[in-house]
Every structure is written in C-alpha cells, then in structure tokens.
C-alpha cells in the first residue's frame, strides 16, 4: 500500500466507510491506538487465497498451567517435534525477541513472561547454542534496562549470564526492503541482527487495537530501532502498520516463534486490556502458521486479520488444512478472547463458530 493511497476512501470488512481522516486518527493515537489496519482488510480479502501454492507447516501446542511450571520441558518437546535439535542449534548465536512493550505493577498479561524467556534460553543452551541474547526495542519505554528490572527479567537472566540488548539504541544496519508493501525502499535494523544466526520471535498472546491481534509477526515490529523510527515506531505506523509488519517479516524472517499464551490479554490490547488465561504455548517455524494457530486458540479467524491473510502463501501459510498440529489439539486449549466492537480493528474477527463479540 503506497502512502498516497490513504487518500482514497475504503470500506472495512464490516462495511463502514473509512476515510483518510480515520486512518490518520488511528496512526496518531499511534503506538497504542487506532484503526489503521482495517482499511487494508477489504483489499487483502480480495486477494485471499489467490496464491497458487502454499507450503505446509507444523505447529506445536503445549499446555502450561502457570508460569511456575517447568516451561523448559514443553519448549524442548515442541522443538523436538518440529525437528529442531542439536544439529540446528549447536554453535548458533541465538536472539530471543520477546514482547517487552510496557509493564505495570503486578501485571503479567502485558509482556512476555520472564520465565518463558528463560525457559527458551535454557532450551537453546541445552541444544548447544553458542550464545543467547535477549533483545527488544520497546515502543513505550526509553530504556530496556528499566523494563528488565521492573519485570525481574534482568535478575533471572543474570543467573545464566544472558545479556539484554536495547534494540532501540543499537548501531544501525540498513537492508533493502524485501517486502515493498510500504513505500520504504530500505529498512534499518539494529546491528545485533548481524551478530546472531537464529532469531526467535516470542510474543505475548494479545488482542491489538491496530492490528486486531498481536502475535509472532507483529512482535517483530519491536525489532525496529526507535532511533530510526521513533517511539512508538511512528514512521512505521504512518506508512501502514500491516504493510510494515509484512515488510519487516519479509526482510528479516524469524527462524522460530514461541507464543506466550499462558496468561494473555483480551479486550483493549496491547496495553490496556485485561488478563486472559489460556494456559498454552504455541511453537513453530512458520510464523504465519503459528499466528494462525494462536488466533484460532483465541477464537479469532486468521483470514480476517489483514497482515495474516496478506502473508499467507507468501511468508507462510494460515490455512488450517496446511498446518499439521502437533502436541495438544486446538480444541483442548481454545478459549475465546474478548474482542471489542468499539475497536474497529477487532470487528468481525471472530471465528464464526464462536461468535460472541461484546458490543461496546
């Protein structure tokens, strides 16, 4: 979507006319708010499943009753089931990219839980990884050290000498934009990406009032450096949030995704929603497939999520028939996340079989 196209009126999936004014409003509210995703939805629905071939994918669902449970074992089991063993990890330098956008006292539903991050780090080290670093470019915090301290992540990782890198303020490396869904010809990444061999997107399972839901693909937004794109990555919102998600994932595809769905967020996510217990971890190498699986767990139809339908057949697959489900069944962990009718990006996302949106 070129920037100038925002001048054209469009209709959302629900039929409401969206204007440039709507889009600008959502972009400004920005990092936190808005509706920008919607006006792309019709466009993407039109090209839905028009691709000729989609790869098959596997995802692994684990049950995890709490953050105090042994989380390393299910992550190891998932990786084993997905064919990721010592041969794939030995001597690799690993970057874990959690979602550490913000925190609040006592809140575990806003960010990827430190215990999940540590468990992933331990799983990688047990498979022979040369090193593990945790990196994030928070959209709302100016220094990662503060959120690491407030969440207890710094102490937890210090036990294993795992460093936390502030991706907002790292040196920059510029790569050609492989997606070209935005007008941006190049994308600036933190130099940390050139010092690792294997990137793991570790999102929180949340609703989102710009993108509908935020999972492993949207989580890669946090890789982008604030010094180049601002806080909350405002330039990327202005050129199109869904297009930016696609460009980032096309240019720097992650090797693995581990979704923290033990306690997620429903309603007015990604910051102001309420906790939602789902008791699950979702793991996979194909990010659109992982997100589609997580979306179905949340009671969300992935083909209604603009960046997922646009990614399907290109960056991965979201078709249920293409995804082999390992571990637990979808039905055994499915729990409906609340979607708010007042948030345009969340309208009409509900899986038909579970439609019970809350009118507000």
């Amino acid at each position: 979507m070129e920037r100038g196209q925002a001048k054209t009126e469009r209709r959302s999936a629900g039929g409401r006319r969206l204007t440039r004014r709507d889009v600008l409003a959502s972009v400004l509210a920005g990092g936190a708010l808005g509706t920008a995703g919607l006006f792309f939805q019709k466009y993407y629905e039109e090209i839905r499943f028009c691709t000729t071939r989609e790869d098959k994918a596997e995802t692994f669902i684990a049950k995890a009753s709490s953050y105090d449970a042994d989380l390393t074992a299910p992550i190891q089991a998932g990786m084993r089931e997905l064919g990721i063993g010592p041969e794939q990890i030995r001597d690799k330098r690993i970057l874990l990219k959690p979602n550490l956008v913000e925190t609040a006292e006592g809140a575990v539903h806003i960010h990827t839980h430190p215990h999940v991050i540590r468990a992933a780090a331990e799983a990688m080290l047990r498979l022979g990884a040369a090193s593990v670093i945790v990196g994030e470019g928070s959209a709302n915090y100016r220094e990662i050290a503060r959120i690491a301290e407030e969440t207890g992540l710094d102490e937890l990782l210090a036990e294993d000498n795992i460093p936390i890198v502030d991706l907002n303020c790292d040196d920059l490396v510029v790569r050609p934009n492989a997606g070209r869904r935005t007008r941006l010809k190049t994308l600036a990444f933190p130099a940390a990406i050139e010092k690792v061999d294997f990137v793991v997107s570790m999102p929180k399972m949340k609703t989102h009032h710009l993108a509908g839901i935020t999972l492993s693909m949207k989580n890669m937004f946090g890789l982008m450096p604030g010094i180049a794109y601002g806080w909350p990555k405002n330039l990327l919102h202005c050129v199109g949030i869904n297009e930016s998600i696609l460009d980032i994932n096309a240019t720097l595809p992650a090797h693995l995704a581990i979704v923290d769905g033990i306690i997620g967020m429903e309603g007015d996510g990604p910051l102001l929603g309420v906790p939602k217990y789902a008791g699950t971890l979702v793991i996979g190498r194909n990010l659109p497939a992982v997100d589609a699986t997580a979306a179905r767990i949340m009671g969300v139809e992935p083909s209604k999520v603009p960046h997922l339908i646009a990614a399907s057949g290109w960056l991965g697959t979201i078709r249920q028939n293409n995804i082999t489900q390992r571990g637990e069944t979808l039905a055994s962990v499915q729990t409906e996340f609340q979607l708010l009718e007042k948030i345009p990006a969340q309208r009409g996302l509900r899986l038909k079989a579970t439609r019970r949106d809350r009118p507000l």
Partner: protein
Amino acid sequence: MCITPQQPEACWPTSLAILAWQGAPEQQKSQEKAVRFLLEHSKVLTPKLPKESVGCDTTLKGWPWTADTFSWVEPTALAMIALRATHSENHPRAQDAVAVLMDRQLPDGGWNIGSTIVFGQALRPMPENTGMALQALCGQVPGKDVAKSIRYLGSCLERLHTPFTLGWSLLGLSAWAEGIPNRQEMVMNVLQRQDQCGAFDTTALSVLLVAHYCERGLIDLLDGKH
C-alpha cells in the same frame, strides 16, 4: 541533523546537536543553522482530527521523531529545551511546543511518549517522558498547571534504578526546585548496579551524570550560571 545519512528523515537529534554545541564558538554557525531548521523547516503532520477520538489536539504543531510524522513528547521537549538554551523561547514555535506538551499531559498527571487517551482509557505515564516535559516547561507555565505531574514524578523516584529514566526524572524535578534529599545516594545506587547488570549505555549514563551535576535543572547549566 539526522541519525545517519541513510536515515535523513530521522531528524530528532537536531535538538541534541544544538545542546552539544552550546558554548562552543567554533560550532556557532552550525548551531544557528540547526536552530533555523528547528524553527522553520521541521516537517510535522497536523491533521484536524476529533479530540474525543485521539485524546489530543492534532492541530498543534510540535516536533516529530522523523519528518512528516506526528508530534511526540520527547522530540518536542528536546526542541523546547534547545530553543531555550539558544534564547529562542519567545519564538512562536517555542510556544507551539508549550501548547503541545500541555495538551499531552495525562489527566492524572505525568506524560508518556505522547498518547493520552485511547478508546476512553488513559494510558500510563512514564517517568522519563515526564521529566523531559517538566524540564522543557519550567518557567513557561504556572506551577499549578503541572503540580499533578510533579507529584507523580516525585512518587516514582524511589523505584527508579536505571540511568536514563532517573536522570531525566531528576532534571525535571530539579528544574521546578523540588528538593531531592537523597539525590547522590540514588545516583550512586544506579552506578553500582552495573556490577550486577553489566555496564549501562554511555548515553544513558551521561544523562544521569548531567542530572547529578545540575541541581537546578538544565537551563542554568546551559546559561552558564551553574
């Protein structure tokens, strides 16, 4: 000024360059050019949008992180501080900065990156942004207009243990002559945390050390009164 030649739209460091050149006669022309850029050439989006839906007045023109995007608290506060340091605080654009910052103040006090109310809910304040805004607004608005923000920031101090956030928080409170009795202890605690957590970023440490040095905020220092 931009962050790198390959990212010319990332113009927010202009304000920092102005501050860095303060008191350096050999950089005076560069500084003047940078001030002119801030005053005349900064590109910022100011669409007219309903305040009830976005929570702020989008027609006010502050400063963006990157050209042709929206005004945000930090670049606007930094621009205001740079303009004050170069005695341009009476320029209409400086007054724009004051208006933007006051408009983005959260209902219960404090500032964050610049999002106020979303779908009817107020977002959380952040101490680092609050410190920057208070520093920028010192002497520009009556104390009563920012009293809730000063109280919010004062209530945060004890739990701030990282250099950038504590540094800006100290600067913001100091600018408003708020007494900070255990200032040195707080600064030392942060420095000592490096033994456990590893070295902090140099830029963040610089903010903390400046804050430690400036007991009345940044402006006196920049005016050579310290």
